[in-house]
């Protein structure tokens, strides 16, 4: 059985293909930049939001009180006392503030007066790499060598 396709039929098929390509190109010209722009803006917003999350969580934490005592003072007392008191409520507070599967709050320095102390971590996963973090200083009782300790919050 033999098919014979005439020149006219070939021209019509070519024209249809060309029209499809034309349509795809025009569509791509309109849609791709719009999608790309959207992705770009979402990335920028996520970048700002991610950067801000740790700061806001830290601010929320420092605004809390426990039995009439403000959180900065609770943390300062904790890091400077020889026998640290039980501040497990800080973990509970952080769990309410941070909607994350993993975070850690540490303080201290290489100074022997207040070596680095882990205040809170949830859960204890060693491969929990932080996506965002923030640091701030909290004043501690007067000491000529050290007047503040660094508080660091990491969120994954």
């Amino acid at each position, binding site marked *: 059985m033999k098919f014979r396709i005439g020149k006219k039929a070939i021209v019509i098929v*070519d024209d249809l293909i060309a029209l499809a390509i034309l349509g795809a*190109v*025009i569509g791509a*010209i309109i849609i791709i930049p719009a999608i790309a722009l959207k992705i770009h803006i979402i990335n920028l917003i996520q970048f700002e939001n991610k950067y801000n999350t740790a700061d806001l969580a830290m601010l929320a934490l420092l605004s809390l009180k426990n039995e009439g005592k403000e959180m900065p003072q609770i943390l300062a007392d904790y890091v400077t006392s020889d026998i640290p008191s039980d501040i497990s409520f800080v973990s509970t507070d952080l769990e309410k503030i941070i909607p994350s599967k993993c975070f850690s709050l540490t303080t201290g320095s290489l100074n022997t007066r207040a070596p680095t102390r882990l205040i809170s971590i949830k859960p204890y996963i060693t491969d929990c790499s932080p996506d965002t973090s923030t640091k701030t200083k909290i004043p501690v*009782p007067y000491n000529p060598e050290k007047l503040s300790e660094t508080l660091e919050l990491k969120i994954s």
Partner: protein
Amino acid sequence: MKGIAPLIIGIIIGGLALYTIILAVVFGRTEINVRALVEKEVLSAINKMEFVKREIPLAVRYSFYQTSYDLANRGGYETFETSYNCVPYWQVFSQNNIPDIETNLKNVFLKIFSKYTSDLSDSTLSFPKFQVNFDKVAGKINVFSSDDIVIQNPSFYVLKEKASFPQNMELRIFSMSDVGKEFTEKLSQEVSSQSSYSSALQKIATLQDDFNTKYSGQFSIVAQPENNLGKDENNFAFRTVVVITDITDNKYPVFDFSQNKNVNTNLKLNFYVLIGKDTSVLPQTSTCEVIQY
């Protein structure tokens, strides 16, 4: 193909050119990226200012604790001329040397507080020169400045915040000082008029009991008279060290310069009085170094 092929090729080429221009416009607009960066920096600055507003009250508190502790240990003085072992004479016979606690507190407080603000400041955060007021009646301390706290990145932004940090605190050193003044006046009036050294000692013991009863649960007053330095039993003169201790639960976390370590302790106000009839006796003195904060 002959009919529309050139048109299609033209449209594709034109379209690609337009596409390139659109992408270049969208992603080449650096202001979008710059704006994102500025927004991040501004958010960061606002957050930093909020951190400062939560940290400074604690610096105020610790500065006041340290000031109260050091001044109380040194009888309310930062520097003094007539003292022995860094304890000043509040009374030398008829001469009264009771310190102006409020002025001395302000001076020492601002020295210590400025150390805290220096420690908290960095290349973008700067604090103004502060002043302090104490409201003894209401139990308030207000640290303030006519200038602002400034967070700035010269190429992006300048963020300013009013520098005022009022706080409610028990200003125990003022009431201790008032008790000390009252006790000194009583000693000066009632002990010096006694006929003999032994009756003067009895009078001191009575006064001490009276004051301990009056300020029960608040302060303990201990007066320890020393040997008679006067010519004889009737022409007496002696030095008494007075220690007034805050016996409430107000323990202050402070640095003790004599022990060179941090302690958690009650306030103790120490001072001497030299009283009696033999006014030729001179107060025994020694030099005392000024605390370098």
